[in-house]
């Protein structure tokens, strides 16, 4: 019998298998083995990446915080997930360099941010973020600002001025992205008057804020404008509500429309500020209404303020403070309306002009105070707003004659041209 050379791989084949000799069958174990190792390596990689992801994210978060000029930051923990793509940081703090009390300028208990997975498959970057229990401290009139922070603020200001407030131009320089939703839950803003040694504070608590549809390209917006809604409580007494919409990608200058309302603010809650600034203690309730409209750089806005049952008392026993309080109370009596149970001093302040140089008009404001006191009481709410604009500029006498005529709707804002 002629002897047959046995190839090494044939030794492993099962003798009873009829396909054992086929080259396809012979490759199978090798392919299997390769697949096995590939899967093993992939699983090991996934585990390694998963283990390293959070420390890596923590490292880059700290690096990011360290790169903020004029501030130093810290956080409690960072967690990242790949499916869905999300990032979470807790107990985030930002403290201004050189702050003697080391009070955080920004504190966020939980910040959640992520990308919308299904949009990623379509090649779109759509993000969302949620901030829970965030606190922001704003120091007004602060003199001890670190030079680096001042320099960074000046640089940002120059950047904005360079594009002449054209946000579409500024946004075109960043990555095509849409922030689908940014939420702030249970937020708090504290304004501190740093010029006064007693550091009087103004609080806005329980802030619920939603910013929807901020796109950096026109094709990414969802056929609706950017929208902002907010509710908060000022000094634990006044309810602040804001609703606004904006087209930040409009040609030339951003367009926006909106309104804000502060209702039921007890003036007693502003004692610290009033005593520090004017030496008087105010009493009464304040309501304020603001509406604003802007397109192609032109701005039109109105502010209406009503103070009900207002009274001023001296903050100290000083003669000057007592005199101020007496004169103030007298003026309030003269200027308040005679609506039973209200006794409100009201004024509408028209603002007209260009976005960069808005002009608050004095005479229509003075006339609206006089009208409220002697002619016709200003209504609560937005009913008297927007203030009508005169077709052409009027002299003071004509403004007064029309503004104080009961048949006319009220003092007219004056056109800017």
């Amino acid at each position, binding site marked *: 019998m002629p002897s047959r050379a046995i190839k090494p791989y044939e030794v492993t084949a099962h003798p009873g298998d009829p396909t054992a000799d086929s080259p396809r069958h012979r490759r199978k174990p090798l392919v299997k083995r390769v697949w096995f190792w590939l899967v093993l390596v992939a699983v090991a990689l996934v585990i390694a990446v998963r283990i390293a992801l959070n420390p890596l994210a923590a490292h880059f978060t700290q690096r990011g915080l360290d790169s903020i000029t004029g501030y130093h930051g810290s956080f409690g923990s960072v967690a990242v997930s790949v499916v869905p793509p999300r990032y979470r940081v807790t107990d985030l703090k930002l403290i201004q360099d050189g702050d003697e009390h080391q009070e955080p300028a920004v504190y966020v208990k939980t910040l959640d941010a992520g990308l919308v997975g299904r949009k990623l498959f379509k090649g779109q970057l759509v993000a969302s973020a949620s901030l829970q229990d965030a606190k922001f401290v704003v120091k007004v009139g602060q003199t001890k600002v670190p030079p680096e922070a001042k320099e960074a603020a000046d640089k940002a200001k120059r950047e904005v001025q360079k594009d002449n407030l054209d946000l579409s131009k500024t946004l075109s320089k960043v990555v095509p992205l849409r922030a689908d939703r940014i939420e702030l839950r249970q937020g708090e803003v504290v304004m501190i008057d740093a010029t006064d040694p007693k550091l009087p504070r103004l609080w806005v608590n329980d802030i*619920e804020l939603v910013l929807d549809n901020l796109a950096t390209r026109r094709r990414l917006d969802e056929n609706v404008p950017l*929208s902002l*809604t907010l509710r908060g409580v000022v000094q634990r007494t006044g309810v602040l*509500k804001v609703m606004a*919409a904006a087209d930040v990608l409009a040609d030339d200058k951003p367009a926006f429309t909106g*309104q804000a309302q502060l209702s039921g603010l007890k003036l007693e809650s502003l004692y610290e500020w009033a005593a520090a600034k004017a030496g008087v203690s105010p009493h009464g309730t304040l309501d304020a209404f603001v*509406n604003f409209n802007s397109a192609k750089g032109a701005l039109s806005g109105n502010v209406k303020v009503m103070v009900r049952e207002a009274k001023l008392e001296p903050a100290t026993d000083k003669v000057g403070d007592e005199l101020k309080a007496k004169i103030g109370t007298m003026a309030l009596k003269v200027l308040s309306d005679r609506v039973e149970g209200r006794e409100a001093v009201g004024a509408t302040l028209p603002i007209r002009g260009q976005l960069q140089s808005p002009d608050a008009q004095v005479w229509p404001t003075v006339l609206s105070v*006089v009208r409220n*006191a002697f002619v016709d009481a200003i209504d609560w709410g937005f009913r008297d707003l927007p203030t009508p604009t005169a077709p052409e500029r009027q002299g003071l006498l004509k403004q007064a004659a029309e503004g104080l005529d009961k048949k006319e709707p009220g003092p007219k804002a004056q056109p800017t041209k």
Partner: protein
Amino acid sequence: MHRLISIICAALVTLTLAACAHPNGERRDPSGTDSNERPAAKARPPKRLETMSTSKTTQQMFKPEGLKKLQAALSQNLDGKEARVGDHNAGGPPTDDTKVGGNGKPVEQTNKLDRQTQLALQAYQKSQGLPETGLPDYETLRRLGLKPEEVFEHELPAERHGVK
């Protein structure tokens, strides 16, 4: 100098008008009618101040039938549920006045962002764990089964009508 003259003029106008007041403190109405005849709406401050009064331009942010659709969706989604919200300024527990939507009391289709709509929105946002602003945001609309573009205009009032 010009500012000083302006202030003096303002003070003079104020004092002249103050002189027109009745000696007993009652103001003289230029129209000759008694000041007590003012409309009742002006005679009382609003009972509850939590809800927002809406300006004409804000109303123009919505599509002509947009708010009706929102009100219909709110009625449908709040139907049968207890929809009560507190009123910060009113204080205390919610009253009948702040009950909306549920118990066979639908949100009236006024096509305005009025008090009942804001309270219904706030109640719905509360039930969904959304930020309770009482104002329509896009996620609230989506959960109500509406597309934001069904309710909001794409172009802002300032872009459509110009700024006066």
